[in-house]
């Protein structure tokens, strides 16, 4: 079975959302700037709740922000 991984478009969507900074997004969803950076770089997979919060803060659906790809 091919290995699948979670990827995300947070960096692009932050830019499109008025060049929102990592710190601003972190403040909106209740995590640190470093955690947003780790999520963006694929070094940390957020909880489902945090993923929904990120999508909501960016005004997008969950699947627009996170994808489960091969």
């Amino acid at each position, binding site marked *: 079975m091919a290995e699948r991984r979670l990827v995300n478009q947070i960096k692009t969507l932050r830019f499109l959302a008025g060049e929102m900074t990592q710190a601003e997004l972190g403040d909106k969803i*209740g*995590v*640190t*700037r*470093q*955690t947003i950076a*780790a999520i963006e770089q694929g*070094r*940390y*997979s*957020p*909880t489902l709740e*945090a993923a929904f919060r990120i999508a909501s803060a960016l005004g997008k659906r969950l699947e627009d922000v996170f994808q489960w790809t091969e």
Partner: protein
Amino acid sequence: MAWREKTAWITLLAMIATYGAYFSLISQAHMSPIAMLELFGGLTVALTICVIVATAVMAVLAGRDARGQPDERDRAVARRGASIAYYVLLVGVISVGVIMPFEEQGWGITNAALLVLVAAEAVRQIVVVASYRRSWHG
């Protein structure tokens, strides 16, 4: 660097310096039990003061990063550190409390128990640092 990684580094380095000095001294010199207790107590107080001062200085330099509550990633890292350190403590307690009494007595056992506590805490801090560095989030 995440704020909690910085505090883990501070605690780890201070622990290595102070308890490294303690166990090095008691292994080289013959000391009375009272002298050992005084040394251990004194070094523990010095460690606590060093960690508080260093953390306060780092908090001033870190600004808003230091004022935030731990988030889900910080809590995941902390859980990982505590769960791995638990096994170190478990093995240490069994060794000191069950096996050592057949071969050692008195202050040898006491110092081994102290070493187990220090080792478990050091492992906890090492796992925290490594988890932030290596992106291990159990």
